[in-house]
Structures are given as structure tokens and as C-alpha cells.
């Protein structure tokens, strides 16, 4: 018989919760990780753990998870003092996170490629695995390094009670804190790598929402993932008598890390509320002003996290209202004392199910985002559109909960008149002229044949991601060729131009006005085909969605004047429906000729707006204001 899962023991919260009486029993759980053959490390198809500790100038022996004693006991005992367990644990959480992504996205994850030779930017190199270094440096930090395709975890010593004034929270004073033992931190960092694999241009700091989105999204995944751990949720629901809006460590991220760093009882980040200055816990009240005034990436990202969590609470409350009525003879008001264990189970099941679905909706929405320059408003539209596609009925009100939550936090998309599902859904292309329609049909027909090969290899069970990568690359190249040659045959310059405009692109030299300058780009920006990927996914109503994602973009670089070196991009994500003859369903674009977006981006990157945030407090100005997001500086706190 073939194994489908590998059982691995690990922490559900941070290690320190194992030393607290009320959480010790639920902090050690058994994770079910998809089975794959593993080498020492562990090293699998997606991740490789290499436990080299340069600061200590040593290696730690790699764990062999296939060793029979280890297999027989569901992996190693959770232990802070055994580096082999650390290796097992980063692997466990990394794989758990990856599985949620593959399940939601309906395709195999292919890591963002590495640029091999700067002279040939098209020549991307396939990256097989993300490398995990559990003990990479001595600092309160952990980060994804997009150049190294690696996640580096740090470790550090907890503060010894500074001048005897503040409590230690849950830490041993002077004890070692390992970031690689916090499931939140691992999930957060792995999510950065996963997000980078889907949207490599989301690391370009083009508006205040972009770095905040990377941070917020990574926290959302870490948070919702935790709510899928049933024993944990049961414990919490029993304690709060079913009320998830009360203070609970479930809504906090990286508690131990936060405690160690600040020498007090505070989690690093919290989605539900926080302790005020007097040490009293307060639930966050949605404040639409925050989105207008908070720009530091983590704090702004936290708005997105709170918004999604808000939707979660709304769904939980509405889904469980009937259970509470049944349990209370219709009053909905619980008797004092503990609630019935059966009710705990039912409530916990509801919460876990909602968390998992919401998590998948959030991940799936990534495919419905523009290829760069994301805003929270875009993300709301992506959430709604993605969910409409996969679950058209929405019996349980997921979409309404999301809309309500975004509204109460004051996050509104650009150019949308009402906050209804219909107007939030990305618009379908209905203004195409006949020749344009023809071109798209032609592309569709062309893609149909090409994509079939990818589909065939994609559905194989073996690890052939490299083959998929190469095939997709080949199809991208061909599509690029086709687009250019087709244009020559069939379109007049004017028609071609008007078609490109509809997908956010241009075939003209750009003249942009910025302050007193008029800047002319030297060349017509080159057309780039970034992605051609077929996807197969199942929505929560069991509906199968078969689509092809195509990304087209253009970039121009400003060659002179005060903005010299600045880059500006435009382009679109096209979503084609395979089951409807490859019709283009959505064109999600950012217009390269948009003047207001250009001015906004330049103002932002030049630090002229209040929203500009320098990522560190050094005297070195951010290189030129156009730098990519530097995760090492940004992370983890």
C-alpha cells in the first residue's frame, strides 16, 4: 500500500506554550503532511533544509525522517534543544503551507525563477527547491531572500528582565528563542516565497499597499492556518464559551517572539485586539481612518489582516447562530459556566471549516490580481471575482462578509461605484471590436493546442515541475511571437494601438509630464509574456473551474532628468476559460499610459507623500527611492 501522508509531531503554537499548564496539552499536535520521498535534511520536492550555522561555525546533523524509529513515532519529539527536531519542524510547517496553496490554486507551485545572466534577462533559471536555513544568524529576525531563494531563520537570547521592571511574559529570561520553531513565523516566511512565485513583481515598492500587502497576506495565511488546527480551536472555544471575539492567543502571531523582544507580555502582532497602556485588553474597532493614515508596512498590513479576520468573525457568528439557539432553547443566551463539549466540537468544526475556506479564497484571489502595483482595493475585487467563479451560489455569505469587512475598515477600490458583488467583480471584456475579438479567438486557438501539453504533464503525479516550467516558457515564447506577427498581418497601427490600450499596454513612445518636466521614453516599451499557466480548481460548492492565466506586461525606464532610473510598468492578467472555448473572461490591468498612476507612483517613490516609509532608520537614504522591498530590513518585526 502506498502512503498518502506522513505524520509529524510539532508545536501548534510557540514552544513556550508547552510550559504553561493551560496550553501544554494542546501545544503538541500531530501534523499530516503530504507524503513524498525524502532525503536527509529533510529534502523533498519543494524544500530543502540545510542546517548550517555560520555564526557558530558548525553544521547540525541532518534528520532522516524515513528512519524507521522516527517513522514509527510520527517524527521526533518536539524539543527546543534538539536541532534535528528544528529541521523536521520547519519542513512540516513549510509543507503544510504549500499544500494549502496548491489546493487553492489548482496547480503545482513553481518557484520564481532565478535570473541567470544579466545580459539575457529572458533566460530564467528553474529553481527546484526553496532552501530553508533554520539557524542562519543570531538576531531577532527571519526573512525570505529572493536572490538566494532561501529562507533564513535567526535565533537570539531573550532579554533578561531589563532593570527588574517588566514581566517576562512566557519566556525563560536569557533563554534562546528560535524563530524556526514558531509556526507563525515559518508560515509567514514561506508565504513570502509562495507569493513571490506567483507575483514576482509584488516586491516592487510602487505604492504603500504593495509592501503592506506582502506583510499582511503572509500574516493572513499564518493566522488562518492556525484556525484550521481543530484541537487548538476547540480548546479556545471551550475557554471563551464560543466567543471568538474575546482575547485569545489564537488571534495573536508570534507570541513568544514578541515577548522576548519587548520584555513584556505582548505578541508580535495581533489580529483581534491589543493591550492598551494600562495593560487592559481591547478589541480593535474598525476605523476607516487607519487606511488613510497608517503607512508603515506592518501596521498597514495589519489593517488587511484585521479586515480578513473581521470577515471570519462575521461568518463564524452567522454560521453558528443556529447552534447557539439550539443549545439555549432558542434564547441564544448561554447559561453561566462551561459549555457542553458537543457544542464545543460543533462550534470548533464550524470555525475550522470557515477558516480553511476563507484561507483558500484568499489564496485563490492571487490569480485574479493585476501583475504589479497591487492595492488593497484590487485585492477585494480579486477576492470577489475569484469566489464568484468557483462558488457562484455563495450560500453562506462569504462574499458579503468580505464586502462588509472591507467597508467597515474603509478600504474601497478605485473607480467602483457601489460595493455590490456585481460592481466589484472584475469586468468582462465586452467592448472589443470585431478584429480584436478575432485576435483573441486566434490566441485562444493557438493556446488550446499548446496548453494541452502542459495540462497533460501537470496532471501527472510525479514531480515534473521542471518540465512544466520549461513547457510554459516555450509557450510564452511562442505566444510572444504570435502576438507580434499577428499584429503585422491583421491590424492597422491604430487598431493595434486601441487593442493594446484595452489590456493596459501601448505601442507608442511615451511622453509623461512630471512637475515641470516633460519626459519622453526613448523606445516603445517591449511586450513581455510573463505567464501561461493552466489551472484546475474546485470551489467550495464542488464546481470545477478550468482556466488559463496569461500575463502580459510592458516596462519603460526613464533615461534622464530628475526621475532618471525610474521604472514604470503596465500590463494585464488575462483569464481564459478552458471549458468555454478559451474565451477571455477577465482582463485585469494596470494601464501603462495612466498619468495619474504615474504621478502617484513617482511622488510616492520620491518620498513626497506622507505615505512614503523609509524601511530603516539609517542615515543612508534608500538607494534612489526605487528600490525593491528589502525583506531583511523589513523583517520580522
Amino acid at each position, binding site marked *: 500500500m502506498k502512503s498518502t501522508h506522513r505524520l509529524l509531531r510539532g508545536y501548534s503554537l510557540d514552544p513556550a506554550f508547552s510550559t504553561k499548564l493551560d496550553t501544554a496539552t494542546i501545544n503538541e499536535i500531530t501534523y499530516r503532511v503530504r507524503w513524498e520521498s525524502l532525503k536527509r535534511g529533510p529534502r523533498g520536492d519543494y524544500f530543502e533544509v*540545510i542546517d548550517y550555522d555560520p555564526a*557558530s*561555525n558548525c553544521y547540525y546533523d541532518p534528520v532522516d525522517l524515513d528512519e524507521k524509529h522516527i517513522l514509527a513515532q510520527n517524527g521526533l519529539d518536539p524539543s527546543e534543544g534538539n536541532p534535528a527536531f528544528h529541521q523536521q519542524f520547519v519542513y512540516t510547517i513549510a509543507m503544510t503551507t504549500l499544500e494549502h496553496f496548491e489546493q487553492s490554486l489548482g496547480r503545482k507551485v513553481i518557484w520564481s525563477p532565478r535570473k541567470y545572466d544579466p545580459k539575457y534577462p529572458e533566460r530564467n533559471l528553474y529553481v527546484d527547491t526553496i532552501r530553508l536555513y533554520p539557524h542562519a*544568524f543570531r538576531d531577532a529576525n527571519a526573512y525570505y531572500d529572493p536572490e538566494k531563494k532561501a529562507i533564513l531563520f535567526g535565533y537570539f537570547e531573550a532579554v533578561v528582565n531589563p532593570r527588574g521592571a517588566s514581566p517576562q511574559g512566557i519566556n525563560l529570561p536569557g533563554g534562546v528563542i528560535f524563530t524556526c520553531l514558531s509556526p507563525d513565523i515559518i508560515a509567514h516566511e514561506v508565504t513570502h516565497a509562495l507569493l513571490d512565485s506567483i507575483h514576482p513583481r509584488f516586491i516592487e515598492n510602487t505604492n504603500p499597499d504593495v509592501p503592506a500587502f506582502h506583510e499582511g497576506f503572509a500574516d493572513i495565511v499564518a493566522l488562518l492556518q492556525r484556525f484550521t488546527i481543530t484541537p487548538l480551536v476547540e480548546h479556545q472555544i471551550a475557554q471563551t464559551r464560543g466567543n471568538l471575539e474575546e482575547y485569545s492567543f489564537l488571534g495573536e502571531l508570534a507570541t513568544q517572539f514578541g515577548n522576548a523582544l519587548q520584555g513584556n507580555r505582548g505578541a508580535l502582532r495581533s489580529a483581534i485586539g491589543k493591550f492598551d497602556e494600562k495593560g487592559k485588553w481591547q478589541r480593535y474597532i474598525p476605523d476607516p481612518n487607519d487606511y488613510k493614515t497608517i503607512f508603515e508596512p506592518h501596521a498597514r498590513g495589519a489593517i488587511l489582516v484585521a479586515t480578513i479576520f473581521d470577515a471570519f468573525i462575521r461568518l463564524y457568528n452567522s454560521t453558528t447562530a443556529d447552534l447557539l439557539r439550539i443549545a439555549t432553547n432558542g434564547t441564544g443566551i448561554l447559561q453561566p459556566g462551561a459549555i457542553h463539549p458537543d457544542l464545543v466540537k460543533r462550534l470548533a468544526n464550524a470555525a475550522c471549516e470557515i477558516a480553511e475556506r476563507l484561507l483558500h479564497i484568499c489564496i485563490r484571489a492571487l490569480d485574479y490580481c493585476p501583475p504589479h502595483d497591487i492595492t488593497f482595493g484590487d485585492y477585494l475585487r480579486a477576492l470577489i471575482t475569484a469566489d464568484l467563479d468557483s462558488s457562484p451560489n455563495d450560500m453562506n455569505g462569504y462574499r458579503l462578509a468580505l464586502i462588509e469587512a472591507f467597508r467597515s475598515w474603509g478600504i474601497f477600490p478605485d473607480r467602483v461605484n457601489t460595493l455590490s458583488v456585481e460592481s466589484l467583480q472584475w469586468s468582462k471584456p465586452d467592448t472589443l471590436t470585431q478584429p480584436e475579438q478575432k485576435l483573441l479567438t486566434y490566441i485562444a486557438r493557438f493556446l488550446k493546442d499548446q496548453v494541452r501539453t502542459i495540462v497533460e504533464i501537470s496532471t501527472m503525479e510525479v514531480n515534473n515541475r521542471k518540465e512544466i516550467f520549461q513547457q510554459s516558457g516555450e509557450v510564452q515564447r511562442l505566444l510572444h511571437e504570435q502576438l507580434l506577427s499577428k499584429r503585422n498581418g491583421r491590424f492597422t497601427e491604430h487598431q493595434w494601438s486601441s487593442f493594446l490600450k484595452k489590456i493596459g499596454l501601448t505601442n507608442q513612445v511615451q511622453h509623461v509630464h512630471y512637475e515641470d518636466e516633460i519626459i519622453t521614453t526613448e523606445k516603445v516599451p517591449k511586450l513581455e509574456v510573463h505567464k501561461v499557466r493552466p489551472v484546475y480548481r474546485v470551489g467550495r460548492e464542488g464546481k470545477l473551474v478550468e482556466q488559463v492565466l496569461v500575463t502580459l506586461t510592458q516596462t519603460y525606464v526613464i533615461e534622464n532628468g530628475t526621475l532618471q532610473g525610474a521604472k514604470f510598468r503596465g500590463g494585464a492578467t488575462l483569464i481564459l476559460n478552458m471549458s468555454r472555448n478559451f474565451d477571455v473572461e477577465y482582463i485585469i490591468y494596470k494601464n501603462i499610459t495612466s498619468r495619474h498612476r504615474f504621478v502617484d507612483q513617482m511622488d510616492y517613490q520620491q518620498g513626497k507623500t506622507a505615505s512614503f516609509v523609509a524601511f530603516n532608520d539609517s*542615515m543612508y537614504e534608500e538607494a534612489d527611492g526605487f528600490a525593491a522591498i528589502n525583506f531583511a530590513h523589513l523583517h520580522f518585526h
Partner: protein
Amino acid sequence: MTRNPAAVTVTVKMFDVGELGDCFWLQFATRDQESNVLIDCGSFRNSEKSKTRLNKIAGYIRNQLNDRQLDVVVGTHQHNDHVSGFVHCEKIFTGMVDQTWLSWLDNPRDQLARSIKKDQLNLVDTVSKLQSRLPATSSAGQILKDVLGFYAASGEDEDGGGPELPARGIEILKQLPEKEVRYLSPGDILPLPGMPTDAVRVYVLGPPRNQTLLFDKDPKKTETYDPNLAFANINAKRFLSALENNTSDGSDRAEKQFPFSSTHKKSEAKAHPEMVALYKREPWRMIEDDWMQTASRLALYLDSYTNNSSLVLAFELVKSGKILLFAADAQTGNWLSWDDIKWKGVTGTFSTEALLRNTVLYKVGHHGSHNATLVKALESMEHSELVAMIPVCKTDPNITKKNGWKMPAKNLYKRLKEKTGYRVLRMDDGYADGCDPQKNKGKTKWKSLPYQPRFDEKNFFVEYTVTG
């Protein structure tokens, strides 16, 4: 307070110390009285050239005073570029100082200050040890060298006086006057010695001393003195012990058991060969130097920490209400704390906001770096006579080198010019570009002011006079 305070004019000389550094001489005068104030005297390096220049400047001040004393000398914070002159020109200053003003952080009788100073000195010490261990060419080594320059502790600089030099500067400042040193805390309001008591008021804005801020839960507010410093210290020591372990035989016992017991630690020779080979196979993925970035983070932390400990003073000419704001090198945390200051003995509409609104001379923070002027505060400076003075030197090697410091920061510089009506003075150039009344007629608004700037290249200063 009397109803009719005397009118005061203030002549401010910004001395060009030839490199990055601060030295300001303020002469307050009523019709019949005069008061002389010196705010800082230092330059970044301690070379012969630096010393010669500082001596010329100190000598000039002494000559001009002609046996009168400096009524007040202010040492804003313990960085070389602000206090080295008191060491190098100790002889000249001897007998010349009536009173010294320092921040509460320099008060040896203040327990909180003492423990903070101790932590800070430890950190400087550890960071300078780090620097001697790190390769000078590494980016971390480079940053460490830069930061330690402020403490004259950069190991590479043969003229470096060591981290005790700026500390000695403060000590000398304490010994120079016969009168007792005054240690100032935010919220203090003082009359200016040598002036009629009601003519000039001095407001102390920073460094913050808010006991509750010390252990505040919100990390965003704790850019002041807090457990972060303790944490930085622990972190720095662990880092240093790792460096020592890497460069020697690693005899430190604590290090041997950190973070795991030594039985787990395998040297390259004893490690699993497959893993070693794997690690080394792809050089682009190796992490040999990444852990050293910790050093630069620590150093930058130390740097902004010390800058935040700056003594910030606002001089009010009571009759006109005009303010001269001297922000030393205060960075964000210091500025942010001003809003919460509880002023002693004031009533009515007085506020920090009003101080900013009435500012007519702003000594720009930290040589014009991007994080030493709070945007909100600069926007509040709306007085029609606003002038800005930036002690910056464009030929300083820290600025001219590749990837050098951005001083003044581009956007701040531009905004300063807009806010002042193109009346920005620099230590090195005199008029900032765009601010020369000859070349930039119509653009600069110097003409609307009663006094025009004066330049004295022989005696290395830019002078500007405020009337009020």
C-alpha cells in the same frame, strides 16, 4: 512676568569646521546687555587638520569676546562631531566658560541616566570590538566604521581618539565653568543668563525622559530608552562571541553551549559530508556573510539611539515671540516626544505647536539627514521670516564616497527651501543653491528681512541676525 520685556537681537554664527560637525555661537543683545551662548563645538575626525581648524575657530571666539566669558556653553550629545572641540581646544576654553548646560542624561546623580549611559557605553565598546573583528571591506565592516566615527572609535582611523574622546568632551564641559552644571530635562523653561530675566526664555524639548516610555508596550513608541537597548546589548555580545569563535579557537565556554549543547555542533570536518557538499555546491545560495548584517543593524541602532539623546533647545525672544530652534541631531523618537511635554509654569495657549509656528530660525537636525526633521514639525513652521541653517560639508569623505551619506537629503532640502522662501544657509557654501539674492532675484525672500546674512571666509563663519 513683566509687561514690557526688552527687545533682543540675536546674531548667530555657524562655523565651518571643514568637515561634518556643529559649532554655533549665539550673541544675544539688548540695548545695554549681552549674552554669549556656544552650542557644540566639534568635528567628525580628529586629524591634525581638524584640530587646527577647531583651534582657529575657538581662538577667534576668544579674541572677539575680549576677556568676557561665554555665559552658557551647551553640549548637545556625546558624538565626536559635536564635542571634540572641547577636548582639542581645552586650553583656549579654559577660563572662558561661565556655565555649562547638558542634558539630564549626563547627570551623574540621575540613576536612570546612569544606567542608560552604562548600557550605551557597553554597546559602543562591544560594537568597536566587533569592528576590529570584521573585515574592513565587508559592507557591515564599512557601516560599523562610519558609525563608530561619531564616537571617534573607528579603529582604522589612526587619529581616532577612541570612544572615550566624546565622553571626555562632556567631562571637560563639566569642569570648565566655576558655576554648577545645569542638567536639563524636557519641560524646563529657563531665563537666559546675561539677559534681563523676562527678555529671553529657553525651552527644553529633548531628550525625552518619560518613565512610562521606558517600558512601553508599543514598539513604535519605544524609540527612546527602553528594553531595546538591553536587547541590543545581549545581541551584540552574542554576536561578538560568535565572531571570536570564528576567528580563534573558540575557548569561550558559554559560546560552546550556545545555542545547542556542543555534542550537536559539528565542524565542517565532522559534519555529514553530503550536507557540506550540498551547501557548497551552489555559491549563490550560501549564507557565509548574511549573519554579519546583524552588526550593521546594531551599529545603526546605536547611532540613532545616541542622536535621539540630543539636547534640543528653543530660544524665545519674549517681546516678539520669535523662536530659534536648535535641534542638534535629534531623530524621529526625540521629535515625537515633544507633543507630550508637560511645561512647567506656563498657562494659556502655549504649546509645542506654537513654538514651531513661531520659529524664525531652524538649525536643521543631523546635518540635514532624512530622518532628523519630522515632516509634521517642519510643516508647522509657518513664520514668514523662517530661515534654516544646515551645518553640512559637501566635501566630507562620508558624503563624497560611493554610497555616501545623503546630507542634506534631497526631499528635505527641497522642502526646506520652499518653507523658508529660499532662505537656506549652509556651513560650506553660504547660500544654498537657489537662495543667493544676487543670482536668484525674485525667488529668494531675503529682502523682506531686516538683516542679511554675512560671510567671513577668513574666520570660517556664516552669520545671520534675528531681531525681536
